[in-house]
């Protein structure tokens, strides 16, 4: 199910309860930040990978994962791993759909992303009306992972999830 991770199937339902505090429609499995989750002896060992180094959501996610497993009666230990570094490619298809419905345009491919963030091409789709007639307002948005866009047709301002590769 998840190519870049090694997760015991029986632990999936518990992990699936934990979502990103900044983007509540996205579970941590959809985000691809869970790299490893296994029951070893009587302890659940988890490895999480941060999205952006300074993302304050990471500490909250760690705490939430711990709480979810303790509630389910498990002992749990959590490690943060940096390598290989997280990439937006690890966001699942379900995650991308959830982002778009929530009003955040999902990340484009790396080359397209560069064009979009340099304002060379109008390719980021408005999450409100679907128009591609959108403009970059700022390369940095409300959180480290997002850029700010505005639709020139419906005028809606919206976030774009930056490609990180």
């Amino acid at each position: 199910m998840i190519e870049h991770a090694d997760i015991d199937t029986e632990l999936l339902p518990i992990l699936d309860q934990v979502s990103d505090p900044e983007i509540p429609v996205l579970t941590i499995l959809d985000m691809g930040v869970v790299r490893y989750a296994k029951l070893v002896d009587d302890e659940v060992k988890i490895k999480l990978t941060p999205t952006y180094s300074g993302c304050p959501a990471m500490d909250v996610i760690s705490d939430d994962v711990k709480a979810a497993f303790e509630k389910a009666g498990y002992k749990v230990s959590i490690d943060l791993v940096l390598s290989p570094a997280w990439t937006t490619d690890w966001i699942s298809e379900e995650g991308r759909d959830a982002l778009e419905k929530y009003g955040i345009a999902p990340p484009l491919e790396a080359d397209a992303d560069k064009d979009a963030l340099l304002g060379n091409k109008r390719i980021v789709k408005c999450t409100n009306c679907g128009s591609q007639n959108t403009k970059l307002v700022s390369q940095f948005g409300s959180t480290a992972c997002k850029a700010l866009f505005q639709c020139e047709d419906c005028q809606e301002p919206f976030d774009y999830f930056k490609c990180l590769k």
Partner: protein
Amino acid sequence: MKDNLYKYILGIADNSLILGQRMGELCGHGPSLETDIACANISLDLFGQVRSYYQYASKIAGDGRTEDDIAMLRKEREYVNVLLVEQPNIDFAYIMARQFLFDVYHFMFLTELQKSKDLTLAAIASKSIKEVSYHQRFSSDWIKRLGDGTDESHQKMQNAIDDLWTYTEELFHQTEADKEMVKQEIGVDVKKLKENYYKKVNDVLEEATLNIPESKYFQKGGKQGIHTEHLGYLLSDLQYMQRTYPNMEW
């Protein structure tokens, strides 16, 4: 070896800590909402990277000091950041010029650090470089926008570049710890980055219609803990809570 590695990590991390603090000062004070948020974002990235470095340094030191102790409880002379990053936020042109002059170096440095034989440093570099590529894009854009903008914005950007130029060469100085780490293929040989650095910087300045400063006089000292007068003020801000309420936790 351990001592040199510890010093080497601080040499990288302190730059990001101090620049992160400078950019953080703009939170709520940026010239526009978008630039304000951008500067705070850059600050956040730098602080995040710094945490990884200090956590590692704390492990290497092995004397019970935590990442917070290392960040917050050293004296001015014990910080080994380059002078460039501690220069004050005079105006937005200075802020972007300082960022740009550091970003170009930072990106090249991390590119090489990814190949380090020290796997932790290589991992932090691989993580950080993705973020720094955004910083570099942002600051380069502003160099061009202000340099190639109005007469006033051009003049302000030229002044900033002229004033900060004197701090650029220190980026390529090597301490004893640096040299030792290069020998062990853990550290980056920054001397080799110098030519490319000035080439890249000059390309952007030219595109921004700015003059490349000709001054051959360069300041140094930060890497040895000898700082400009600005660092003391910055640290008194940064360390205020820990000094006033020792051991407090958030």
